[in-house]
């Protein structure tokens, strides 16, 4: 053996020994020490399948719901939520199917739940029903108007406050509380269908506010309204450029 290594330069001989030793250790570990099952991929996959199977089942699937709640199931099947599973909203219900009285699935009633899908988001597909959760009928639970098992496509809102809730609330505590929205705005019927394309009007002249607030106003409602001289006050500006009409200030 010593003779064999003498053929090589000294550094090379030493390196050969080191690398052969490393290689031998590697081979021994791989061939002898590692048990076969550890190297067999199929076995590991089988273990993974077993492990997954061993996990507790929490979801029952909608067929299980349909057995008892057949009316709701039939209703949902025809509605817009037909592609949603019951447990999407009600949460895992396996425990409920096993003992219906003991565990009840959740019924989400808070206003943060539906907006997870229906809050306005520019990236959502066009035509998908979306609302602004702050302005859309504030404080009302979604289910008080929409039946979640058969949600109807958006109906035309009856009142302005359905969409403009913030303005409505502000106006309700202002001096303009008694004025209808339509006193100042003309809202074409089409605005309720395509709100962004067809917009309501805004008063464009000083004389409009002057109907109540001019010195010589004759309107009945204007009896106690603050009066100004239109000729002297505000020059060329339209009134709402300085005064916010939904919450006008009180200074006399």
């Amino acid at each position, binding site marked *: 053996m010593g003779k064999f290594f003498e053929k090589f330069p*000294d550094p*090379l001989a030493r390196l050969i020994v080191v690398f052969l030793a490393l290689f031998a250790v590697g081979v021994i570990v791989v061939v002898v020490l590692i048990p076969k099952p550890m190297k067999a991929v199929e076995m590991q996959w089988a273990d993974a399948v077993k492990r997954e199977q061993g996990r507790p089942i929490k979801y029952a699937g909608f067929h299980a719901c349909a057995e008892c709640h057949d009316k709701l199931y039939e209703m949902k099947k025809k509605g817009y939520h037909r592609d949603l599973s019951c447990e999407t909203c009600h949460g895992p219900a396996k425990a409920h199917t096993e003992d219906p009285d003991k565990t009840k699935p959740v019924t989400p009633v808070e206003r943060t739940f539906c907006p997870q899908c229906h809050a306005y988001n520019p990236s959502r597909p066009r035509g998908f029903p979306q609302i602004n959760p702050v302005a859309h009928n504030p404080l009302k639970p979604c289910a008080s108007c929409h039946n979640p098992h058969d949600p109807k496509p958006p109906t035309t809102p009856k009142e302005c406050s359905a969409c403009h809730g913030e303005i409505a609330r502000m106006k309700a505590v202002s001096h303009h509380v008694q004025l209808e929205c339509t006193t100042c705005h003309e809202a074409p019927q089409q605005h309720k269908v395509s709100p962004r394309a067809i917009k309501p009007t805004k008063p464009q002249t000083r004389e409009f506010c002057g109907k109540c607030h001019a010195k010589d106003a004759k309107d009945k409602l204007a009896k106690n309204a603050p009066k100004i001289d239109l000729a002297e006050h505000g020059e060329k500006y339209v009134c709402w450029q300085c005064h916010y009409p939904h919450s006008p200030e009180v200074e006399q």
Partner: protein
Amino acid sequence: MNPEFIRTLQDLLPQIQGYIYPNEIEIHWGLLIVVYPYITGVVAGAFILASLVKVFNVKEVQPLYRLSLLTALAYLLVAPMALVAHLGHPERFYEILLTPQTSSAMAMFGFVYAWYLMAVLLLEIWFVHRTDMIAWAEQETGVMRFVHRTLALYSRDTGDRSVAFDHKALKAITIVGIPSAFLLHGYVGFIFGSIKANPWWSSVLIPIVFLFSAIVSGIALVILLYMVLTPLTGGKISMRCVDKAVDFLFYAVIVDFSLELVDFIHRVYQSEEEIKILSEMVMNKLFASLVIIQVLLGMLVPLLLISLTKIFKRRFALNEDLRKMVYFIAVILIQMGIFATRWNVVIGGQMFSKSFRGLTMYKMEFGGIEGLLFAILLLALPIMILAVLAKILPPWREMHGADSGDVEVAGS
């Protein structure tokens, strides 16, 4: 969704823009995966600098030779730590070597790494230091004598035949080493470039861009270490050496910059479906790290600084200290820029949704295994390892003795 999971993402949820898929809220490849290509890049770059001396016979940068080899080794030892720490079960790392999965590019990294460490870097360092270690061991006593003896594999042969073989072997290893260094870092780029589903990564240019940014960061780091360590160990910085190394650094930055520019122009000209969300990401979420740090501070400013020393050559030739300062600032900025490059690739690639309709946000932890503290530790660790290596295999003689041209091994 699981309420507990939602709670952990509470801080992130308000930061999300547009629509993203639920599994994209949290960025899974975090800071550690940023640190990993940065450190690997330094290894490849430092090695390329070392090979300038051995293969391309650039005598001026000889003082950097051993330093760059030791730097490469110190960083290489730390490189996989970021990965195994990120995977969460560091104690299982050896299994990828024992039960190889050849169809997984990531698993094959173990072999690329082992090849580079065992067949290139350790061998080259061993051959460079063999006769030195024999000589040192003869003058020493105690532990250091034992360490040097053992590291020299108890070789005592300093005869002509062995020394001649050392030189031949070194040449051969360095020649094999260059493609290996390219493989090591090109591979890191390949991992990203081959991810078809991610348009920020999926580009054939990515491995090459990674390679050149690696060369840039490696050369810059070795220059920085040389400029800091030489005065600290009582030597004088050889400006001939630094000038030459900065020359190479300058060219490498230009190539790197051009490649990234080509990639950028190509993306903009192609204007595929993802271009909108990518441009929004670059202009908002990545503006500071990409436009300001990576491009402006990390490339354009250093290029300008180094060009200044070239344009006003005569003026700078008179004032060595000024030139040193300009180089010093340039290499530090380049380090910052390359780290930002890694950040932008890794984090940027996960910030936009596969829906191309939304952006998420990266929330960095402070403590914990994925946190800032651990990343800083990983970045500091190679410097500590380098300090130990420099104790065992001191490169100082070579670093100090460049001007006299005396670079032959001690004791021979």
